């Protein structure tokens, strides 16, 4: 352990010069850890605020429902948050693959290489998480402007307390350690560290069968919606999320096959092949936004009933309006998380393929073609999955809108614009990897 610690300190000192491109990946990874931590704490602060309000003497009858919805929203954000943390950890490792493989050749043991990785990831996660706490503190005044239950939040309501902050820090570091260790397995197994790319196994149609089964179960349960409680809705949402995570990569894989088959340009062909190659990664970029889109769509329907013309009582109108706000808030946070995840994952991919990028660039390939391939790799699954989610949400909306509430088309516009903004954030994240490409191909 002492040897590992000394080696890590030596490599850290040597890798700290400004000319080292490793600085770029370190910076990106720290930013990603910071964003994940800040948003995690904001979400937990929000849940805590609703819990406090529900526990306060004279709380509204709806207060418990607010807590339930807050937990559901947090649950929806767990996977995007974890994905971001894991992507950051993989990025931390990406640039080090070659160096660690060289260390293995020089005689470092598997344990030492793993130890170095864990130390690297931990250092970055701790730095990022501490910055994230600062970011959380900076965000509290902004979040306090949101109105729920007819009033804005007190700053104290959104303060999670030190134990929660420490737990969040520990969770972020744990995700970093686990993810970095897993992504390093191939280096640890062989000193050559060669990642042989072979024909990727296709995803099975079993995933599609699971989706069909889930839809049937969902249909049966929702037809008896009046008889089920909020907890059942919560369980259904978790099941729905799990199903989506099974089906999502399969959908991306199918879309990738169609894209590659029909591609006429090099950029589209590359995008399609990459989607086939690693549909899970492509899904991770867009899955959170797709689900949040559907939830925001359903939540926005409730805002139709919150207007005075709907005949709801003022209390009910306020509750339903708040549900819609919560839905949009979840979509916004999911969009932000997905944007950073996508940027970080794409940067990691570019760094992992830096030799190929460099060779193609030297051979006269216009970097814009490679940029375009990366954008399409995100854009195509995004359009398919978010488009499908938004389409289903609109399908749910239309009957309600058709029932004499044409004046509420603004709700549809608001929903579509919100989805557009969330999707735009993800694409902006993908576009950010251009900087990394310019860095790695520099002759």
């Amino acid at each position, binding site marked *: 352990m002492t040897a590992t610690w000394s080696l890590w300190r030596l490599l850290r000192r040597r890798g700290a010069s400004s000319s080292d491109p490793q600085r770029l990946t370190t910076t990106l990874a720290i930013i990603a850890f910071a964003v994940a931590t800040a948003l995690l704490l904001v979400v937990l602060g929000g849940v805590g605020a609703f819990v406090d309000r529900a526990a306060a003497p004279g709380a509204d009858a709806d207060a418990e429902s607010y807590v339930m919805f807050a937990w559901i929203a947090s649950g929806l954000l767990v996977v995007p948050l974890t994905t971001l943390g894991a992507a950051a950890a993989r990025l931390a490792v990406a640039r080090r693959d070659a160096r660690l493989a060289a260390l293995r050749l020089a005689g470092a043991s598997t344990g030492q290489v793993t130890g170095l990785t864990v130390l690297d990831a931990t250092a970055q996660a701790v730095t990022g998480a501490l910055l994230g706490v600062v970011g959380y503190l900076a965000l509290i005044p902004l979040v306090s402007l949101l109105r729920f239950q007819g009033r804005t939040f007190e700053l104290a309501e959104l303060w999670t307390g030190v134990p929660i902050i420490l737990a969040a820090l520990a969770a972020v570091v744990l995700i970093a350690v686990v993810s970095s260790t897993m992504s390093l397995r191939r280096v640890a197994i062989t000193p050559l560290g060669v990642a042989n790319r072979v*024909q990727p196994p296709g995803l099975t149609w079993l995933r599609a069968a699971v989706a069909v089964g889930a839809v049937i179960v969902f249909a049966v349960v929702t037809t008896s919606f009046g008889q089920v409680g909020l907890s059942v809705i919560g369980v259904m949402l978790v099941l729905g999320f799990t199903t989506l995570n099974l089906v999502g990569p399969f959908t991306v894989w199918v879309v990738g096959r169609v894209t590659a088959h029909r591609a006429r340009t090099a950029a589209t*062909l590359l995008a399609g092949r990459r989607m086939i190659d690693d549909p899970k990664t492509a899904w991770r970029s867009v899955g959170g936004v797709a689900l949040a889109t559907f939830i925001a769509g359903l939540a926005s329907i409730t805002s139709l009933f919150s207007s005075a013309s709907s005949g709801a009582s003022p209390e009910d109108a306020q509750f339903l309006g708040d549900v819609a706000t919560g839905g949009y808030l979840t979509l916004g946070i999911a969009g932000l998380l997905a944007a950073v995840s996508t940027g970080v994952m794409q940067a990691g991919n570019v760094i992992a393929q830096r*030799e190929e990028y460099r060779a*193609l660039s030297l*051979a*006269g390939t*216009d970097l814009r073609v490679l940029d375009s391939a990366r954008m399409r790799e995100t854009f195509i699954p995004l359009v398919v999955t978010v488009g499908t989610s938004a389409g289903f949400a609109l399908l749910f909306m239309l009957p309600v809108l058709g029932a004499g509430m044409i004046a509420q088309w603004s709700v549809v516009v608001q929903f579509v614009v919100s989805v557009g903004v969330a999707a735009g954030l993800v694409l902006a994240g993908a576009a950010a990897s251009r900087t990394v490409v310019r860095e790695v191909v520099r*002759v």
Partner: protein
Amino acid sequence: MQPTPPPPAPVLLAARSLQMVYGTGPTATHALAGVDLSIAPAESVAIMGPSGSGKTTLLHCLAGIVRPTSGSVLWREQDIASLKDTQRTALRRSDFGFVFQSGQLLPELPAVENAALPLMLGGMPRAQAVATAAVRLGELGLAGMEDRRPGELSGGQAQRVAIARALVGSPGVIFADEPTGALDQTTGAEVMAVLTQAAARSGAALVVVTHDPTVARWCSRTVAMRDGLVSGEFYAPTGHQPTAPATQQATAPSAPQAPAPAPQQAPAPQQAPAPQQPGGQGR
């Protein structure tokens, strides 16, 4: 060995008083200190020298990858050193082919699509590009391997896919930077046989940067470099080529095979370590 150069041939690619300086002031490094070189159509030239002699920098300048500090690079009598970066990029794509030591094939694309990439980038319809690439792969002994990923190919096979890709656009010149550097000697000889014969068949000139005399022997001329200058030139006897391993001869039937020559006069022996170039040059 033919110690005197053959009669003057038309010039396809030329370097004139080429200088490349990295850094300024007392720390400046002259990677190229005034290189003059002419390459004829369909000629194969090996650029040899120890690490840091400037051979890779010379290749980068000749291929328009970097702009020299001074001097000119004439490609079909046009000075490419004065072209804008976008123009040089387009020229590399349309007129030049490249083979590197490794890392040039995209792992997510099967062999045939890797080889077809330059054509698709140039705007050729996919079906036509893939069909053309498949023919090239077949010529290089890779028939039946079109759908294999780079990870499913041996090192030699992967280099042949890279050669197919370099040749697919019918370039005027192929630049190869240590093309056998990651291969064992037998496979390296196979790859050099395929490279020189395929270039000759397509009428392309070949510029190979290497530090390995056995690789240089496959070329009709060897240019030795030292400290950023051409320190000597050696011509192989007309019509000679080293013997390719038996496995390779079957894949390149049209190339003339001749008995292995006597070892050449070793160009630019590594007498003293040359200074390392900055910025990862001279790999």
